[in-house]
């Protein structure tokens, strides 16, 4: 068992090399969510004056979306990196070893979860500086757990595609998938203000539950079980499907 944990840790650390040992390359993905936040707040900051908008502070309202967007892109990058590893033969090294396939998958996913906390940290510092409401310790912890979990989901999604297409050319698909998953939700306005197809999609999109779970601390200033458990169910459900697909992809990689 300890050997398996050691393998997960070793693979997660290797994933972090990309950030730690190539600092220049990490800057865009580190800062992108923050830049989006600043842009959105400037453009749509007055949306809160719309009748029916459930929050009076757009920074606090949209910050969770940016956190998840950053986590989504970090996770998708894990998929792109796996595609590169497959192209260059590194992945063969892992597959030719007796390490259990779920352990290899856990290592890759864990690196995404840890990496996702980096852009989120930058984002939080800037958001608080421009007036986001502090969600309290519990609210912050809940938000960070969901950010790490969403990065894991996005990583699993990217890994499924990498195993299927075996080429970095699939990168846009990995990124677009996570981007749309976060976009077609209550990302920029409460459900009551959405219309037409977007309202329908946002209603059924499980990521809406994740956003609301992250958002509760920032908007309401407190964490409630009623807004937390649907998020947990959404993460668990998506996770079960994506991990099953990723494991199937690994088992079929030499078919």
């Amino acid at each position, binding site marked *: 068992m300890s*050997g*398996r944990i*050691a*393998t997960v840790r*070793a*693979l997660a650390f*290797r994933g972090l*090399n*990309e950030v730690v*040992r*190539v600092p220049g*390359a990490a800057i865009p*993905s580190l800062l992108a969510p923050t830049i989006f936040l600043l842009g959105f707040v400037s453009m749509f900051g007055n949306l809160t004056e719309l009748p029916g908008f459930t929050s009076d502070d757009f920074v606090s309202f949209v910050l969770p979306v940016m956190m998840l967007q950053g986590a989504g892109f970090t996770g998708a*990058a894990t998929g*792109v*990196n796996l595609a*590169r590893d*497959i*192209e*260059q*033969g*590194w992945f*063969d*090294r*892992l*597959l*030719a*070893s*007796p*390490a259990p396939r779920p352990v290899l998958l856990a290592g890759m996913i864990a690196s995404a979860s840890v990496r996702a906390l980096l852009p989120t940290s930058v984002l939080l510092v800037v958001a608080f500086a421009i007036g986001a409401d502090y969600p309290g310790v519990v609210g912050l912890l809940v938000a960070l757990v969901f950010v790490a979990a969403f990065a894991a989901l996005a990583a699993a999604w990217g890994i499924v595609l990498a195993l299927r*297409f*075996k*080429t*970095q*050319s699939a990168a846009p698909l990995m990124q677009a998938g996570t981007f749309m998953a976060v976009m077609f939700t209550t990302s920029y306005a409460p459900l009551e203000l959405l219309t037409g197809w977007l309202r329908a999609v946002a209603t059924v999109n499980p990521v809406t539950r994740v956003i609301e779970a992250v958002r509760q601390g920032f908007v309401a200033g407190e964490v409630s079980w009623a807004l937390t458990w649907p998020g947990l169910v959404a993460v668990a459900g998506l996770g079960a499907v994506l991990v099953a697909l990723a494991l199937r992809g690994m088992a079929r990689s*030499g*078919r």
Partner: protein
Amino acid sequence: MPAAIETHALARSFKGDVVAVAGIDLEVAEGEIYAFLGPNGAGKTTTVRMLTTLLAPTGGRASVAGHDVAGEADAVRRSIGVALQEAALDPLMTGRELMLLQATLHALPRAEGRRRAEALLERVDLADAADRRVGTYSGGMRRRLDLASALVHEPAVLFLDEPTTGLDPVSRLTIWEEVQKLNDAGTTVFLTTQYLEEADRLADRVGIIDRGTMAAEDTPAALKAGIRDPRLELTIADGGADRARDVLTRFGEVAPAADGRVSVSLGGGRGQVAAIVRALDDAGLMMDSLDVVEPTLDDVFVAKTGRGLDDQRAREQEQRERSGDEQLVVEPARQ
């Protein structure tokens, strides 16, 4: 003695009806060095990928270290060391980190992993470079690291896919010596190569693979002896070539050789050389030079397949095989 590697009608085809390996029977004994010799695209890499559990066979079966590659893949993986073509190493990791990761993947206890990593780094002469990133290593250093990483769990069977392709002669020699030492210590080695010299020098037995099938298999000496006798090549001085041919015909089949030389087959073995020299001397003929030319594995290859090792068609076959097997290769990017 049980076989370290055994295949029966092992086959692999890819989509588009590309047949990369068309039914191969192999038996490699424990402690043997077996070389798979063939041009690019002959099916060498596809075979190695099947034997190392990276690719599922589409026909036949194979076992390595007594375990079926399809049904008991995990047991196979625990028994084998694998160094694949063009050492896939992460340029951001250091040599030591790679060795430790490899030890972790094989579930070695931490202290044991460290001990073996250090010993192997020392052994392949990378101890001084162990904390440098692999990205700064030369081609020879990368291959040595890749070889060392394949040994960290002391595998019974070692697979080396073109271990010295693209290396300079000195680096090649270092790898050969290391492989020889490993084999002396009992490790079974299965290697693929397109270098005849490599097969000749290292292998106990050579299998010649061509277009996915075995064209020939034996010890290097037997393969060479099987195709033709050694020949004596002579340079005859001062236009005595015609008379020399008359003399030489008494000993064997005479044929012109390169650079205006004349050659005669030594059907009776090398011992005939003395008699031939005496006969030429008796006829008053002077020789400027003489060489005994043994058949090479290249000659064997041509004899068995009807073409040389670097044939153009082979390259085309490889491209077809790759398009079925591998993926589009895109410029690497780091995210």
